[in-house]
């Protein structure tokens, strides 16, 4: 660990965005090399070579298969994640603000969070069928947990002195929530959303495997069962890419809302 460096400094910029991009590319290159090495050594084509994977991606794209599956998956994912955000943030905030309510339900949330989502699948099929509702529900169940729990923790970690100040101005509970508590909980919210977004993506695949098979999850099953590992890797990489896009756009949002933390932090 290098020590923390001087900060809030006079016009000193943090490690430039350029350096970061460069380092990321270098790291990516290392990963690809490692992958190529693994492909060469692991027996019997369990790991396809990077070249074969690129070739497979080209093929899938030109056939239009990837796009179609991607579209299906994104609808499921977007619906489930959207619902998780709309439910998770207010619920977590409510749990944090109303202590008795929070303490009453939180164990049940923990219990639910610890229960494998597959365990609910029979129930979900009975209640919601096999369509988008059922799939979105599975995504929702996965994504909502980190969002609730992180919001809950963020609201609990609020600055009581600031809240007392806000009360002294006659601000309503809602105004205090919106202007003081939630902005203060922003770093928690962002991790919650990040985790929710990644878990939601994983659950999209699970949902597509366990209810009517479709989308990227369906392709994953197809290529996995028929041992087409290059195609399989293309799907895995596509999933990773979606995850990166969503989480990186959260970074932009966070950056905009955190300008008050002066630049120059290491």
């Amino acid at each position, binding site marked *: 660990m290098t020590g923390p460096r001087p900060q809030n400094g006079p016009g000193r910029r943090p490690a430039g965005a350029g350096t970061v991009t460069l380092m990321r590319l270098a790291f990516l290159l290392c990963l690809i090399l490692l992958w190529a090495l693994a492909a060469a050594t692991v*027996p*019997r*084509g*369990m790991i396809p070579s990077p070249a074969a994977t690129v070739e497979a991606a080209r093929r899938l794209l030109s056939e239009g298969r990837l796009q179609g599956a991607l579209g299906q998956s994104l609808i499921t994912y977007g619906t489930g994640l959207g619902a998780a955000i709309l439910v998770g943030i207010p619920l977590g905030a409510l749990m944090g603000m109303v202590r008795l309510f929070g303490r009453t339900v939180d164990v049940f949330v923990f219990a639910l969070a610890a229960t494998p989502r597959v365990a609910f*699948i*029979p129930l979900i*099929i*009975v209640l919601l*069928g*096999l369509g988008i509702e059922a799939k979105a529900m599975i995504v929702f169940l996965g994504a909502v947990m980190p969002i609730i729990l992180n919001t809950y923790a963020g609201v609990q970690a609020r600055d009581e002195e600031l809240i007392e100040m806000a009360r002294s101005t006659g601000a309503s509970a809602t105004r205090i929530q919106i202007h003081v508590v939630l902005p203060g909980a922003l770093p928690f919210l962002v991790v919650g959303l990040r985790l929710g977004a990644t878990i939601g993506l994983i659950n999209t695949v699970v949902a597509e*495997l*366990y*209810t*009517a*098979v*479709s989308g990227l999850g*369906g392709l994953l*099953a*197809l290529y*996995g*069962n*028929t*041992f*087409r590992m290059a195609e399989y890797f293309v799907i895995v990489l596509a999933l990773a890419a979606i995850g990166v896009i969503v989480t990186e756009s959260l970074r932009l949002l966070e950056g905009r809302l955190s300008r008050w933390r002066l630049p120059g932090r290491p």
Partner: protein
Amino acid sequence: EPFRLIISDLETPLVPNSVVDLALANGYFERAGVEVELVRVQQTPMAMAALQAGEGEMANVSTDALLQMVARGTSDLRAVMSPNKSLPFLIAARPDITDPAQLEGRSFGIGRLGSLDHSLSAKVLAAKGVDMDRMDLVPLGQPAVRAQALLAGQVDATTMSIGTWSAMPDRDSVSILVGMDDYFAAAPVTTKVNVVTTQVLGSRRAEVEAVIEALVLASRDFQDPDLWVERMVVARPDVAREDLMVLAEAYRNSWSVDGGLTREELKVTTEWMYGTEDFQGLRPVRLEEWTDFGPLETVLRKLGPAEG
């Protein structure tokens, strides 16, 4: 060190594949002079990975998966026998559907488009004069999920294994459209085989032969429905004796009394599989690339052909 046999049954199954568990429980392997340990995994892909990782010496896998791998360049796997070549499949439907013809325009649950159960069902239904393309096919993945969807009324009919069917609660509310016999008649293919790596075949050939011997002997014994039911009652106390007796009758001719591996059947199997969607564009494979009749022949020479 023990000879590890990888199977994808979580407990003694209700199909002829039960010989593996029964053989172990009843000392067949010991008598054949080999110490066997069962490694249970959930599905064929895991069994394949485990075999390749050296987590077992022999694995019971589906034939289409093996063919896929061989066609895609794997060269060191050999099928040496099949303890359960028959097809314990059936098509079940909601009670108001009693004839396959009624299925047109209805929803039908399959594993996935192009999967083995899909191709087989298409073939079976075609034999009954029903065109699967005129149904609303719903890919549902796992067999248990297909059954759940049927029970929940989310699909009108689906294929399932006899094992799944016999475990289903409230079976009376489901009608059987196509039974097991029809299945095997329509598609006489060997769906599951036991494979070993060529390396194991070289270094532990005697044990491979002993395992085959024990399984063949067990199959010959459990041909007798009464014996099978008697042993199954012990292995599966949760299943009613009457159900077991019905199953035993149904399996009467499905036991691998001669090892379950014949050139003709495998040839039919290969040809049939290459006609399905999953295999389109794949390089044809020769029998020698993925089977080795040597060990089985040795065993059969020693034991002689099955009686009756």
